[in-house]
């Protein structure tokens, strides 16, 4: 007795499964962004730049860890390390922010996103979170390696490890600050153009142009001016906040009593960039 | 155009085309990238053929400023200064042609495209159709015998297109030679029956597309037939030599005729002979679209 023959119905099926809410959609967008930042899910070419930068930063961290392990010298502490890597962070942001944001603009994909249950604000938050995470990983993982190097070679046992943890955690927070400030600025600039090269150039230019201003201000005769000079550039701004909040880090900036000003400006800068980003995408979504 | 080819390095844009344009409206047809714009630009004297000759009245169009007196070209994309009014723009063109009375010529051209009322407004305020018509006026201001248009209906809404079609039609009737390119067959069908079909740089066919269809004798003509007794008619038709196939369904008959001439004469005779009333006879594959797709397969 043979089985009856049948033609299976592979026509269009309706979907009756669950539909997830805004949070999951935002998370999906975030994960997508984070993967795109490091070139996953795309061609090999897309992986070169971010991993090259990450590689250099890691290498420096490894060398520092090795030096500390061998010779006991702390060439750079965790916080100073982050500062030292500032230009690499800028390079990373200059490459990744356009990948996250300019690419979508250029390919015209935004209408496909905004015709879905994804608000303009959700889009911005997801991309921002992805870039912040990316930059934080860029700094935080090497810092972790430095920590591990120190922890495994410490001569003072658990107390030594605990000390290191006490140094690492604020440094991680410092890395988060770097990430947030630079991601905000980088995304804002990148969102202004669909051409990745222009965006990258624009980001680097902003940082390049503000640095000399700091230099000029810092040689003015007034001590106030000198102490406030760091406000003019994002890098020194972040360093200033770090100096004020983590005095043990010895970044080497003299802020006088203006530490709190640095913090306020940093927060204002982040808020402004984000608000502008949100406004921009709300406009773009209705275009 | 005589044996014209045009290449860019390894890319052969136009391959050995010989074409003759007569007064009236001709549609230059082909898929995107087939070489239509290249052909138009060579005719307008903007490009030189890599091989062969392009002539107007036996004078070459390349490097021959004289020929611009007889030619007008309306490009597909052209930036028109938004701050000028239509009148200013067309008058400027008239002056460039060194016409004796630029204002009068411009007025005539604008009247031809029905832009007289709006001519004093800035071009920036115009709709797409109006802008297009302004450019046509500018191309017509020196009363050229030949008008070349590249994708003139692009992006126009139905009413604007109809206006443009009527305009081209009337110009053709006045004796101008008009060649317009398009990849939208529906548009071409409505303006002109005469076509030049370009596929991948080669001229696939010229002439009236219905006649072109009849030239395709290796393809049976397909007709839709409705009558008072379809099945009996089907039986009678299949007995006929010129019929290669008959299909019957709820809407009527689909008849394939291997010999167009014999079938079209036989059908009335057969229907009358059987006492069947013929209600509908419609050629199903004579549309420009079918002809075109057959040409593409060649």
């Amino acid at each position, binding site marked *: 007795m043979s089985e009856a023959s049948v033609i299976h119905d592979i026509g*269009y*099926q*309706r*979907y009756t*499964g*669950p*539909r*997830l*809410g*805004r949070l999951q*959609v935002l998370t*999906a967008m975030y994960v*997508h962004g984070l993967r795109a930042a490091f070139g996953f*899910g*795309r*061609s090999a070419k897309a992986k070169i730049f971010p991993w090259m930068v990450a590689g250099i930063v890691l290498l420096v961290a490894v060398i520092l860890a090795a030096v500390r392990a061998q010779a006991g010298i702390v060439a750079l502490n965790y916080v100073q390390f982050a500062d030292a890597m500032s230009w690499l962070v800028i390079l990373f942001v200059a490459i990744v922010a356009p990948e996250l944001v300019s*690419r979508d603009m250029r*390919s*015209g*994909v935004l*209408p*496909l*996103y*905004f*015709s*879905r*249950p994804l608000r303009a604000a959700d889009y911005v938050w997801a991309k921002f979170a992805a870039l912040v995470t990316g930059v934080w990983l860029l700094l935080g993982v090497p810092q972790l390696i430095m920590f591990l190097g120190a922890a495994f070679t410490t001569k003072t046992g658990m107390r030594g490890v605990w000390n290191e943890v006490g140094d690492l955690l604020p440094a991680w927070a410092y890395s988060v600050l770097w990430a947030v400030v630079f991601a905000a600025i980088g995304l804002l600039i990148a969102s202004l153009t669909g051409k990745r090269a222009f965006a990258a150039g624009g980001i680097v230019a902003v940082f390049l142009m503000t640095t000399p201003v700091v230099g000029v201000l810092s040689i003015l005769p007034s001590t106030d001016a000198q102490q406030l000079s760091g406000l003019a550039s994002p890098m020194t701004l972040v360093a200033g906040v770090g100096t004020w909040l983590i005095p043990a880090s010895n970044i080497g900036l003299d802020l006088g009593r203006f530490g709190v000003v640095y913090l306020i400006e940093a927060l204002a800068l982040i808020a402004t960039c984000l608000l502008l980003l949100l406004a921009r995408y709300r406009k773009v979504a*209705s275009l | 155009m005589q044996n014209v080819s045009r290449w860019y390095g390894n890319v052969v844009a136009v391959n050995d085309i010989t074409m003759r344009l007569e007064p009236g409206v001709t549609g230059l047809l082909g*898929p995107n990238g087939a070489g239509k714009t290249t052909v138009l630009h060579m005719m307008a004297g903007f490009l030189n053929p890599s091989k062969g000759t392009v002539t107007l009245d036996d004078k070459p169009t390349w490097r021959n400023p004289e020929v611009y007196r007889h030619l007008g070209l309306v490009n597909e994309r052209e930036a028109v200064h938004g701050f000028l009014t239509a009148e200013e723009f067309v008058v400027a063109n008239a002056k460039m042609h060194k016409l004796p009375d630029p204002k009068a010529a411009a007025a005539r051209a604008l009247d031809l495209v029905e832009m007289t*009322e709006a001519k004093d407004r800035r071009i920036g305020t115009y*709709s*797409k*159709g109006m802008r297009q018509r302004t450019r046509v006026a500018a191309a017509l201001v020196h009363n050229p015998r030949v008008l070349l248009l590249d994708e003139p209906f692009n*992006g*126009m*809404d*139905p*009413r*604007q*297109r*109809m206006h443009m079609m009527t305009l081209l039609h009337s110009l053709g009737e006045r004796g101008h030679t008009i060649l317009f390119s398009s*990849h939208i067959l*529906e548009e071409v069908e409505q303006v002109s029956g005469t076509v030049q079909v370009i596929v991948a740089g080669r001229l696939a066919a010229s002439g009236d597309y219905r006649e072109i269809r*009849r030239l395709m004798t290796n393809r049976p003509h397909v007709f839709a037939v409705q009558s008072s007794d379809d099945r009996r008619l089907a039986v009678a038709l299949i007995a006929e030599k010129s019929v290669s196939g008959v299909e019957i369904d709820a809407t009527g008959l689909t008849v394939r005729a291997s010999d167009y*001439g014999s079938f*079209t*004469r036989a*059908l*009335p*005779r057969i229907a*009358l002979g059987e006492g069947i*009333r*013929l*209600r*509908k*006879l*419609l050629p199903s594959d004579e549309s420009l*679209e079918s002809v*075109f797709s057959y040409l*593409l397969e060649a």
Partner: protein
Amino acid sequence: MPVSLIVTDALTKTYGGRVTALSDLTVTVEPGVIGLVGANGAGKSTFIKIMLGLLAPSSGSVRVFDIDPTVNPDQVRARVGYMPEHDSLPPDVSAAEFVTHLGRISGLPRTAARERASEALRHVGLYEERYRQIGGYSTGMKQRVKLAQALVHDPDLLLLDEPTNGLDPAGRDAMLALIHRIGTEFGISVVVCSHLLGEVERICDSLIAIEGGRLLRADRISEMTAASDVLAVEVSEGTDALAEALTKLGLTVAREDRLLLVPLESDAAYDRILQAVADLELPLHRLDQRRHHVAELFATKETADV
């Protein structure tokens, strides 16, 4: 009572007080395949954006699936699939990955997104190509990817903006057949924005014609392409002789290019024409009741400001 698909009431949208994209638009759209014609540029994209809740109307109201998109845009967007007119695809990802990603952004869980993406790509006719990068696709393939992403989350309404843009005739046929299938077999309503009236006549069952932001006409296609009471006859030679013969038989004959137009006063007209053609042994090329065309909508009025 079954819910109408889209209902607008005096919908108006002006930009900056000068440009009126939509003006006092009142229309009820029933499920099916609907053509949206005439509105070019501003009007069309404004209408789509308002439906998706991306723009608020200046005045008037709109409801999609009986939901107000200005209040609950997410609910509307979850049930609508949008296929934009212009290039919208990133060149450096594969279709499979891209459509899956968009499925997740529509709220589908990961496995469901993957599966439905795969199915959507199959339904639009993309097979092995789907694993290659989109940058290498032909226009036809890209249009299909855009359609697949509109289908992936199983919408109840598809908004297709110029779906046959840039396609060659074979591609257009395929796309139109696909849209027709979606509208009939899949049970999804489709709004097709097109400037090609022939296409619209072919696959749509109703039509909304907008002009200058205002509603020109909203009707079933069958109403607009009704048969008139005129018969068109075409013979590939001997048109004059036939015209004479028919006139002698007492029929009023009008000439239009190659066609002879004869009023259809009674069925006897068919027989008389056939007899005349057979007597003259002329090749009969066409015999048909003239039908109205959607294009006639745009031919009647005279507007200077077009």
